[in-house]
């Protein structure tokens, strides 16, 4: 595996993201919606913190808990909508236009193609997430929120995004229709999301396994500012699994074609 080859592919993908409206559209969408969430969270925070009833209860109002956490949680939900749009074209587009023939007949390994494309998707996702930093930086102008939980929260968003992007990359490789890839990715992401719900009522081993598989459940800790190796390992293994499936599917499609 050569880093150089991965980077060549990654650069090309990034360029084509930014040469099309996708990147800007997603960033604008995220800026708008995330900005609204931030506004709503701070507004609630301001109202509550000036409420004498709350002060009487002796509950200290905390920016991290009342603003940063809900904004991060909501941002991760937005990821659910944006990730299919990022990954759907990765392979489907190349298959439809025939450019996959160029990649497949160049002296470059499948895994390098996959990693390059996935990395480009991750970097675009980072750019999108970075937009929300504008909102949160306002908190630093007027106060002194804790930095560490914020960084952990962003790490969580990044890991969660990367793992869904890996799944999306795999799905994009199985079809030549972008829309099919997008819709299927959205369906799978949604499913992985709601698996967490069983934890509310099912505490049997099966229920625990199912809720363990949920991408959402693992994000909660990050949003709270808790860095647990269990969650990191979960995300890393899903990334690995998604990319591994992609290599297998490339191989399979070549032999079956």
């Amino acid at each position, binding site marked *: 595996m050569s880093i150089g080859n991965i980077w060549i592919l990654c650069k090309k993908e990034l360029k*084509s993201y930014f040469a099309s409206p996708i990147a800007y559209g997603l960033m604008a969408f995220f800026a708008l919606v995330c900005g609204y969430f931030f506004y709503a969270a701070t507004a609630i925070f301001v109202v509550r913190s000036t409420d004498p009833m709350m002060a009487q209860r002796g509950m200290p109002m905390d920016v991290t808990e009342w603003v940063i956490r809900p904004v991060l949680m909501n941002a991760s939900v937005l990821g659910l909508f944006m990730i299919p749009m990022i990954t759907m074209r990765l392979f489907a587009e190349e298959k439809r236009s025939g*450019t996959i*023939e160029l990649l497949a*007949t*160049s002296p470059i390994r499948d895994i390098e193609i996959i990693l390059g494309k996935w990395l480009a998707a991750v970097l675009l996702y980072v750019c999108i997430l970075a937009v929300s930093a504008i909102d949160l930086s306002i908190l630093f102008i007027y106060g002194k929120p804790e930095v560490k939980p914020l960084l952990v929260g962003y790490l969580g968003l990044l890991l969660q995004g990367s793992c869904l992007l890996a799944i999306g990359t795999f799905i994009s490789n199985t079809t030549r229709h972008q829309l099919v890839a997008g819709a299927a990715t959205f369906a799978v992401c949604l499913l992985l999301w709601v698996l967490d719900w069983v934890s509310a009522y099912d505490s049997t081993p099966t229920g625990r396994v199912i809720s363990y598989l949920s991408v959402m459940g693992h994000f909660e800790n990050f949003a709270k500012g808790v860095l647990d190796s269990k969650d990191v390992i979960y995300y890393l293994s899903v990334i690995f699994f998604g990319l591994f499936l992609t290599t297998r599917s490339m191989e399979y499609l070549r032999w079956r*074609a």
Partner: protein
Amino acid sequence: MIKVEGLTKRYARNVAVDNISFEVEKGQIVGFLGPNGAGKTTTMRVLTCFLPPTEGKAQVAGFDVMTQAMEVKRRIGYLPETPPLYPEMEVSEYIEFVGRLKGLPRAGLLKRVDEVCERCNVADVKSKLISKLSKGYRQRVGLASAIIHNPDVLILDEPTAGLDPEQRRETLSLIKELAGEHTIILSTHILPEVEQTCQRVIIISKGKLVATDTVENLNSRLRGAELVAVEVEPRNGHLAQEVVQQKLEQVPGVSRVLFREQRNSRLLFEVESLQGRSIRGDLARAVVQADWNLTELHPIGLSLEEIFIQLTSSTEKGGSK
């Protein structure tokens, strides 16, 4: 340079290529000829390591496409039927990207990009977006990117498809120029192109190899009987077509006389000889003796087209037995 032995490629339901063997020498231009769906693209895809063969072996520059794919890919330039272009890239950017993909170092790459652009006549659109290019330019950009790494073998799948006659002529002469440095396989179903550019022809039909030979050999191999065009003019007055036809049919060795057309008072016939007979001399004498003017007399070679039809239709008969 290229060696294919017993190559078979089966898809789920049909056999695309059936036990094909051929060899291509270094520096040759070989035409890969066959009707649509004959298995040309599949064979090329196997040679470029895009598809694995079901059975048989294929070697490029001494490397096996299955076990040494990386080495093969490094030595091959491939232009698929639709050039694999990214519309959002600029021409020079795209060619540079392909160069990097093929493993060329960054140093000197820009110079090489300029070289191939010059070579393929796309230097004037170097900074244009590919999406803005015409079909002919796209084809040449594809060709430029296929030779960026100076490959030993160049595989071109229908390089002239969809081009207008002028672009077609340009592309073919460009390919001809590239020969010598590169071994070239080009596929087409347009026969005159092969006659113009290629030294050898490989004809396949329905996945089977029908013939492989030089263009001249194929021509002479299939030309047992002689076909002659004869044009006759009356010395004065009018000449009835039937009279001339009868006269020509009486010439010894003639098997068939076909009236073609009348140009003013001149009559044009196509005369076919019996197998292995030369009839031109007798035809000339017969016309002159009848006191007509012989205005034209020349042999018509069987075109590759006719050879092709003969060969492919004979395999069809063989296949239906």
